């Protein structure tokens, strides 16, 4: 399967850059959770802030970027009417934290939103500003400028600051190369493997999705503000579309228990004399993740990590690993992006189904340090974009990551991000390694991550941002 061209056909100049660009070289990041205390003044601040927002035109190379997304409460806080706010999808309106959604996402037990540090329908969480810079000093300088604008506005309070970073080697806290398998947005102008080019409308509103339909988009049915900024609804409803060139953003702060993860892998693979077998421990961890630490695919390199730079992401399971002997069915990677081997369908049907449940990941690592500079917590600021929370992010977490009975599995959840069912009498999950002569099982899987906060946001297009300043 070759990398194919993907001619530019979407309005990149109107799309916030983070949706289509990973900014892999901008290693220092900062997430500012803010509240608006006065609608008119907050709109004034937004007007000033918009020139900082980077667009998706990847022919430009910025060293400092800013992006902004809003909760429904934030849109109300800017003055969008209740009727217009109610035109947003239900998950946005309800927030990430509802009883049903908690069950779907596994937000109970250690992940209980009652224990979250932020989000989960927090009343004063109105928007998330995301800053990227080449390094920490330049980020600090840029952040000071942005924060001053907020303070000067007299209407924008920072309620939480969350620093993040990317490592130059691309590794996340468990030590695995992250962010390799990403979809390519059709029409973005970026070439990609044929099977990874996904319809624009899976990530951006106002374009057709994999069903050949326009995704549900927030319309302005209660006219307010300068509607000239907004395009007409592509579905010909006669209303203006606030969503076009925007995307829905998921943000979850995921603490990673790094020591616990590695100790577990070592314990489960010890030599008969009780000593640690590092090679076996690394292999088990790789089987759980679905890739080697270098990022190399288990399908292409089943026995040993080749090291070096990550291998081409251009592979399928159907032809080379139908029975999961190389990359287990239950591994994090395979279950969350089954590619051409979803269930037993033919490759074409599998890809069709898989492409309807993709997300664009844009996260960063984080480390919390105490006053002496000692790390107290590490993890991932998981950020992803999709056009349909329920069919994409929630589907992946619920139907794939938390699914104990995917394919032939009987009690296996995603070792990395899965959560065992609440009503299951505390029965622990297992991890099945398909193989010959018989499958092997790793029992008593622990939880290696904990959700510390999260919320659903809307990241508007640039014209829509300007519209919001006119309310």
């Amino acid at each position, binding site marked *: 399967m070759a990398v194919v061209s993907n001619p530019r056909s979407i309005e990149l100049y109107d799309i916030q850059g983070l949706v289509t660009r990973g900014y892999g070289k901008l290693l220092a990041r900062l997430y500012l959770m803010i509240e608006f205390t006065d609608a008119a003044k907050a709109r004034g601040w937004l007007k000033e802030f918009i020139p900082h927002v980077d667009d998706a035109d990847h022919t430009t190379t910025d060293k400092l970027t800013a992006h902004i997304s809003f909760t429904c409460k934030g849109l109300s806080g800017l003055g969008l009417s209740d009727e217009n706010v109610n035109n947003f999808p239900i998950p946005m*309106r309800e927030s990430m934290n509802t009883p*049903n959604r908690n069950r779907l996402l596994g937000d109970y037990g250690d992940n209980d939103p009652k224990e979250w540090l932020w989000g989960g329908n927090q009343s004063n969480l109105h928007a998330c500003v995301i800053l990227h810079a080449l390094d920490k000093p330049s980020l600090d300088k840029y952040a000071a400028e942005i924060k001053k604008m907020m303070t000067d506005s007299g209407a924008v309070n920072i309620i939480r600051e969350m620093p993040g970073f990317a490592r130059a080697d691309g590794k996340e806290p468990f030590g695995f190369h992250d962010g390799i398998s990403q979809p390519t947005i059709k029409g973005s102008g970026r070439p990609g493997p044929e099977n990874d080019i996904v319809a624009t409308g899976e990530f951006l509103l106002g374009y057709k999705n994999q069903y050949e339909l326009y995704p549900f988009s927030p319309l302005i049915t209660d006219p307010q503000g300068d509607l000239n900024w907004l395009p007409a609804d592509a579905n010909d409803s006669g209303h203006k579309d606030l969503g076009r060139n925007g995307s829905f953003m998921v943000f979850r702060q995921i603490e990673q228990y790094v020591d616990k993860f590695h100790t577990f892998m070592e314990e489960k693979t010890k030599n008969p004399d009780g000593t640690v077998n590092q090679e076996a421990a690394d292999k088990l961890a790789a089987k759980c993740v679905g890739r080697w630490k270098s990022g190399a695919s288990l399908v292409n390199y089943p026995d040993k990590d080749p090291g070096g730079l990550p291998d081409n992401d251009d592979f399928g399971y159907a032809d080379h690993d139908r029975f999961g002997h190389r990359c287990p069915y239950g591994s994090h990677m395979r279950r969350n992006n089954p590619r051409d081997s979803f269930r037993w*369908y033919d490759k074409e*049907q599998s890809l069709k189904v898989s492409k309807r449940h993709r997300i664009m990941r844009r996260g960063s690592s984080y480390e919390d340090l105490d006053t002496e500079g000692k790390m107290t917590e590490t993890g991932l600021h998981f950020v992803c974009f999709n056009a349909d929370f329920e*069919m994409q992010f929630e589907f992946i977490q*619920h139907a794939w990551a938390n699914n104990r*009975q995917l394919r032939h599995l009987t009690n296996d959840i995603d070792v990395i991000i899965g959560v065992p069912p609440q009503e299951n009498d505390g029965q622990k999950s297992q991890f099945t390694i398909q193989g010959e002569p018989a*499958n092997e099982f790793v029992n008593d899987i622990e939880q290696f991550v904990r959700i510390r906060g999260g919320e659903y946001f809307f990241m508007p297009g640039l014209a829509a941002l300007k519209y919001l300043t006119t309310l």
Partner: protein
Amino acid sequence: MTKQRAVSLQIPVIPEQLSALTELLQGGGNPWDKNGFFPFDLFTEVHFGRWIIAPAGTLQNGKHIPASIVYAANVDGAEKAHVERLATLAPDAIDKIGSHCVGYPAEGNRNLATRIKFLMSCKIGTPGFYVGAPERTVQQIKGEAELHTAIREFTIKNKGKWKTSREAYDAVREFVVNDPKWEWAHAKFKLPKVNWPMMILFGLIVLPLLPFIIIMVLVIHFGDEKHSKPLGINVNQVPLKHLEKMRIQEDIIYQNQISQVFEVKRGMRKVSLHFFLWATSWLARNVYVRGELMGTPTIHFARWLIIDNGTRYVFFSNFDQSFDMYLGDFVDNSGWGLNLVYGPSVGYPTTKWLVKGGAYKIGEFLGWGRTMQVQSQIWYCAYPWDGLQQIVDRTKLRTELFNSGKLNDYEIKKALSRI
């Protein structure tokens, strides 16, 4: 071989008693609330069961339809035997429900015979019925689950002992043979297969009907569908209050359930409903017998009942995973099939040539589906934590150990992969 049969009852409700009955049924029980008053656990023949209220409604022609209770159970054995067991094993629960219903025996006149007579008088047909794991009894499904667990534990204990797949297979077989507990598993069980003679018969029946089917398609496409009014709301526009009532029952155990009540369109659409339900049932009995319905492998059962003198129909199903996954999966695999069976319902997204459009407008389809959904006040499943494919796999493993003659190396590997 025991067939899983459908028992369906529709019982008219005394209008003044509706709210009391609704309140009563809310405490009837479900797979995570074992303290409900209806003792489904006593009925060892029941795979799935539910009591729901089909709400009162006004048809498009202005006619009022009163509320009623619909009871549905998938049972091993004869329908009448199950109805008799209902009256025998759960007379108090039946009285509790029946006392709110039209025609139920008066207090002094309640005995086994009168209860059975009443229930039998409420029996209705089941024109559409699909079973995900057919021809297995409740006992067999539970037994095969235990056997599978035992084999897995045996495999874990013997990790690294076997050099070849055949060696592993022989050891597993010996383990099962040597334990008298699993003697029942040696008995011959024939996995359901596509019934080709019946399919040929199906073709012979349908072929002469082709002219009628073509006329039906033309009349519906150029007539009925032009005048039909789709509900036209996206799933994101379903009232939150209604949605919350449905979601409160969902995603708690592995299996989920759905109950929906629809008004039947009139004219040729009504005819098409009867035809396609008949065809679905036929295909379900003879083709879709291996754990998937039109490519969707997560449906434990699906049942369509025509109620209220043909003016409404209901759909019941138990499935693995969430509402969105279930219906999304179905659309991915066979939206055309959904269009044939649900196209006759009032408010369904407009179809083209019966099979196109409709469910493929997925946001609108899910919006329609949620709106038509009603609460399943009491529902039961004998194996609520089991996925359909796991049930199917366990039977296959058992038959591969005992009923399949000498397996070749590939077949052995396949069998072992099920552990």
